[in-house]
């Protein structure tokens, strides 16, 4: 007879271990028996059905993640703007309509295989990012001249655009008077993670006006949005910066042209740990504040800065607590991708209510894990540190690596940025710390200012008790390519297992995800002589997935 399309004979039914079936149903299958790779439909990345994680975790996923987030997306859209602007924005911008509605699949990919506390804590991080993304695009749409018949409304007049690598912390003194929204964070950066199809249009557009293919594709995409006239016109001015690299500086040239409105450059010094550079950097930050005062007529509000900086410190302090648990125990409940994306997002964005709310939820889970000694990633064979900048189109590779090989990415380079508390006792201290905060920005703190920064890897490996390095090899990053051989030499000299993972940041066409998996799998079989935990994940086709 046939059952669910499969031929089943009486003997099979007789031989079935029903107790095991019931246990699998109730608790979910053991890691080695999950066969997650069998769930995919062709090369789409879609699921024949979503994973059955046992009754408790499946229902948690359904109620507390899937339903909760879909529901909150609607309430967030209403809370941060209105449905009309949302629909207009969806119909107008490719990065919106093509990308963000697929957001639950972003959850699925990042949270695949997770159970219990790890599932809950990681999902809260995703929730925070989704909510803040909605807040930002709703603000953009509400102020957007393009969606309002070219009208410069009050929100437009009270918004400032900034390069996504300029930290939102800079704008704390003005947040009671206006709002700062990163120009590329939502139209570009977050889209790559959620649905990597969209960004390819922008990369191609950037090259269509004559840019060669070799510059960093992140920078290409950042101005490709302008070439395609796909940026929301939501602010009268912009602040840009030189973070993190030559490409970022150069991108400003083209963005300035297309925006064609007052632009303040707020560069950070390259040799940033030279004590002599701090004053110069501080003055550039003050220059940015003066620019805002001149352009908008608003006044620097020290009390507001203090209030928000202190709140922001709370987020940083909790981050330190998380690092401590991650470094010294097996009870850390946040997986590699959730940790990395959340950290880079909130520390770049600066304090917002949602980050505080999410940290509150995660703290409870973290305390429970530590208190009850819950091993959140019990199949860990290797504790890995991921170094250099990650492939945006496959930031969830670490979820796969754990499910397939037991490689647990405990920490990554970008999470270690912005390692700075902000003093608020005096203006001078505040400015000094803010200067440092900006100098320790993502992709930058380690990548510039001397080779000793990038070689901090060895200290962090020790601090986080890692036995393996996933060495991201961003093919278009000149800074990292320029020091490739020294890393090879050091890995050999220190006898470190390092897997080089080539990628092209947002552009999946250069190094497909399957190739990244193959490189890791090849290393695990040929060098480490290990067997996969889930053999169905070793080789599968997701070339057309989001």
């Amino acid at each position, binding site marked *: 007879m046939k059952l669910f399309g499969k031929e089943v004979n009486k003997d099979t039914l007789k031989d079935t271990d029903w107790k095991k079936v019931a246990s699998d149903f109730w608790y979910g299958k053991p890691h080695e028996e999950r066969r997650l790779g069998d769930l995919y439909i062709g090369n789409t990345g879609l699921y024949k059905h979503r994973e059955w994680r046992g009754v408790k975790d499946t229902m948690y996923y359904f109620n507390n993640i899937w339903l909760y987030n879909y529901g909150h997306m609607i309430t967030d859209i209403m809370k941060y703007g209105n449905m009309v602007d949302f629909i207009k924005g969806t119909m107008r911008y490719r990065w919106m309509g093509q990308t963000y509605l697929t957001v639950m699949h972003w959850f699925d990919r990042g949270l695949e295989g997770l159970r219990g506390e790890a599932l809950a804590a990681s999902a809260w991080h995703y929730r925070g990012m989704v909510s803040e993304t909605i807040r930002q695009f709703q603000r953009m749409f509400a102020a957007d001249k393009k969606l309002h018949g070219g009208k410069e409304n009050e929100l437009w007049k009270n918004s400032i655009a900034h390069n996504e690598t300029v930290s939102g912390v800079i704008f704390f003194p003005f947040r009671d008077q206006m709002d700062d929204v990163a120009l590329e964070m939502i139209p570009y950066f977050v889209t790559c993670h959620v649905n990597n199809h969209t960004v390819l249009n922008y990369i191609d557009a950037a090259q269509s006006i004559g840019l060669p293919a070799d510059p960093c594709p992140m920078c290409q995409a950042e101005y490709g949005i302008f070439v395609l006239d796909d940026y929301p016109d939501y602010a009268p001015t912009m602040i840009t910066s030189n973070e993190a690299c030559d490409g970022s500086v150069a991108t400003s040239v083209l963005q300035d042209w297309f925006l064609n409105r007052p632009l303040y450059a707020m560069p950070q010094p390259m040799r940033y740990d030279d004590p002599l550079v701090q004053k110069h950097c501080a003055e550039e930050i003050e220059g940015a504040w003066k620019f805002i005062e001149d352009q908008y007529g608003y006044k620097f509000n020290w009390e507001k800065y203090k209030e928000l900086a202190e709140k922001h410190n709370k987020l940083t302090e909790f981050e330190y607590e998380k690092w401590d648990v991650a470094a010294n125990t097996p009870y850390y409940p946040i997986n590699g991708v959730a940790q990395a994306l959340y950290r880079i997002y909130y520390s770049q964005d600066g304090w917002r209510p949602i980050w505080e709310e999410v940290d509150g939820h995660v703290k409870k889970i973290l305390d429970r894990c530590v208190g009850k000694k819950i091993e959140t990633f019990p199949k860990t064979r290797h504790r890995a540190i991921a170094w250099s900048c990650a492939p945006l189109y496959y930031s969830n590779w670490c979820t796969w690596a754990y499910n397939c090989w037991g490689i647990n990415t405990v920490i990554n380079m970008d999470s270690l940025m912005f390692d700075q508390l902000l003093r608020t006792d005096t203006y001078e201290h505040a400015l000094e710390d803010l200067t440092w905060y900006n100098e320790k920005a993502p992709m930058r703190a380690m990548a510039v200012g001397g080779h000793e920064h990038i070689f901090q890897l060895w200290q962090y490996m020790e601090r986080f008790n890692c036995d393996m390095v996933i060495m991201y090899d961003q093919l278009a990053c000149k800074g990292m390519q320029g*020091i490739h051989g020294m890393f090879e030499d050091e890995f050999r000299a220190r006898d470190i297992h390092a897997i080089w993972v080539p990628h092209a940041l947002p552009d999946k066409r250069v190094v497909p995800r399957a190739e990244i998996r193959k490189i890791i799998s090849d290393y695990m079989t040929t060098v480490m002589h290990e067997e996969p935990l889930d053999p169905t994940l070793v080789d599968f086709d997701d070339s057309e997935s989001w």
Partner: protein
Amino acid sequence: MRDLLHLIEYEDLLQEANNKLVRQAKDEGLRALGYTCYFMPEALLNLPGCFSVRLRAPRSTSPDMATYYMSNRTCMFGRCLLERALEGGFNFLDAQMATETCTVTCRFQEHLQMMDVIKNPDFFCEFTDVPFKKNENSIAHFEQQLQAHVLDKLSEHFGIDTSDEAILKAIEQHNEVCRVVNEIGEFRKLDVPTITGFEFQLIQLVSLVCPKHLILPMLKETLEDLKKREPDVKPTWRVKVVLAGSENDDPYFVKLIEECGALVVADRHCYGSLPGRDPIVIEEGEKPLHAIARHCLQTSMCPRFMEQHVMRERKEYLAKIAKDYKADGIIIEQMKFCEYWSYERTIDTIILPRDYGFPVCSIEKEYVNNAVGQLRTRFQAFIESIEIKKIQAGGGQA
């Protein structure tokens, strides 16, 4: 045209970094200080007791060892410099005065720090932070950096006199070099120039890589000789062009352009004389070091500068050069993998024809040029397109 005085010797001096004049200066007991970028003020490296050598890697082929260290996806200039260093070609250097002004040359210089490449016990490599803006804050910062990372280090390591008097003397010598090179360069503005772009680049390059006190007398003689030089009765060129773009220390690249029929009348690129040979002007009451810092930032046309008005002025400057030197078009070259110039080239290629009416030939090149055939085709097509436009503009008359 007849050969210019010393030109063959200049060509010879450019065949290796440790050339005859560098060796002579070292024998005199002077310290050789390497650098790669305009942002390391040349004048400061020519204080009494030392001399500057802007690094090149002439006659490079395939930088295999450097490619292991820096991969094949970085600018070949940086790799060729590292290869030359690994081969021992820079062992004559007593110090590398480094700047983190573009990523790959920065990494090259970091390798000098990390790998103990330079076999000279006195050698050290010191970085200076260079700002991205031209405002007062940046000038003050840069002055402080130059004091701490150049002057103090030279004094500390080699006992170099870094007093204001010594700096003034160095500025004087520097300006004399600039004056002579600029005077030579002025001949490119003639309707029928009496110097080719190739010849001028040889002159400009030797002025960068040789000890100033040894090359200056030769340059002066060349200038005198040039004053008496007559142009060809029938010029070999068909159009005049400005060469702009990223690092270019290869005179044979200029020769290639000129062989195709375009005379290179202006050089607005790294290692070029515009604005590289602008003299340092000391304002009244200004300290010489401040003048150098200000000069370096204010005159530079590097795409690294981020201020909005400065970004836009760069295009205007380039158009002005093309006009002043009576150029028919502009060739924008970009070293492959140079991020700054890949973007700058993109915008220049659109804005200069659109807003200033200059035709642009936009090309990507390598430090070691093997794709000569392709480049030749591009240049020939560009020259023909300018000629056609001239014919059309002149109502059918060439």
